[in-house]
């Protein structure tokens, strides 16, 4: 292991684009290690990823986005990396934004830097329902943690050692890591900031948020935020 930073890419059936993404990252961000967490894919994601030069952790069963991501954090802790960057496997996150995310964390200005797609760079437009959700929970999060939150559901983040330890622990919510995580971080005394990044909209129609899921999401977020506020300060 030559690097102090690990890029974590949770992936489920992304065999089509994962190779390209990894090569892109290696081109634009030299000097970091890359690990793909294959969340029980039925396609050749693992093969494509290792051919492109990334390490691959293969989960025996599908755990979902949060569970796969957390596996990456456990890997970070087991292998002595100091910093981690989480990035989506579907190509929505632009790898050249990674240095901008890492900088404040490496400088110690924040424990975690979250990439916001609404802070000016790029031209990301969300769908109506998603927009409402983002606005609502972003607003709640902003009010509760005392800083403006423009993008609460971002999966594009650079993390320092304290946050990695926190995410790898039992406190980490595995369904949809977002607004409630911001509040938990705040309660745990960890500093989060937002950094503008470039994001692209989904190229295929397949959405994580279809049918009853948005309803469950809203319910789950309210419950999670409420419970987080009730808990004593997290160590």
């Amino acid at each position: 292991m030559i690097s102090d930073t690990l890029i974590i890419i949770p992936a489920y059936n992304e065999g089509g684009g994962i190779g390209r993404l990894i090569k892109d990252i290696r081109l634009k961000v030299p000097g970091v290690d890359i690990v793909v967490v294959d969340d029980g894919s039925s396609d050749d994601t693992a093969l494509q990823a290792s051919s492109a030069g990334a390490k691959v952790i293969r989960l025996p069963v599908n755990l979902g986005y949060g569970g796969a991501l957390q596996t990456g954090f456990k890997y970070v802790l087991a292998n002595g990396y100091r910093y981690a960057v989480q990035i989506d496997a579907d190509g929505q996150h632009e790898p050249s934004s990674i240095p901008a995310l890492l900088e404040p964390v490496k400088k110690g200005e924040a424990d975690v830097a979250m990439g916001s797609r609404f802070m000016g760079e790029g031209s990301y437009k969300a769908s109506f329902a998603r927009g409402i959700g983002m606005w609502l929970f972003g607003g709640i999060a902003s009010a509760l943690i005392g800083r403006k939150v423009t993008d609460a559901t971002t999966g594009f983040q650079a993390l320092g050692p304290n946050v990695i330890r926190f995410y790898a622990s039992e406190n980490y919510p595995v369904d949809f890591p977002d607004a409630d995580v911001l509040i938990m971080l705040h309660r745990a005394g960890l500093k989060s900031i937002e950094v503008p990044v470039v994001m692209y909209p989904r190229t295929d129609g397949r959405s994580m948020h279809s049918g009853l899921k948005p309803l469950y999401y809203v319910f789950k977020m309210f419950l999670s935020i409420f419970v987080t506020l009730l808990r004593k300060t997290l160590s």
Partner: protein
Amino acid sequence: MDKVQVVSLVVSFCILIGVIDLVRRGKLKENYSVLWICTSLIIMFFAIFRHLIDWLGRLVGIYYSPSAFFLMAFIFIMLITLQFSVVISKLSERNKVLAQEIALLRLKVEELERMSAS
């Protein structure tokens, strides 16, 4: 004692014996048998002293004794299913941790195999 009391007594006794036997054979864990054993004992008790169902019902404002009985049965079902939800939550968490450990170990093994092969 009328027919319904005898039937209730026999059925609840059979459940009690059945549950205890499942525990004895190791097919039912002791802590999940607690609710079942308590409930069958309670039903056996009320089967013998059936006027107590009426008394209990009147206490909470129910005047039709079958309703009081069903309310008790319903509460029992809710408690059992709540216990299941708690257990399932714990199992899910453990399951996730196991899957993660396996994945990390698998990578380690693959790397060690590669190292020893070269």
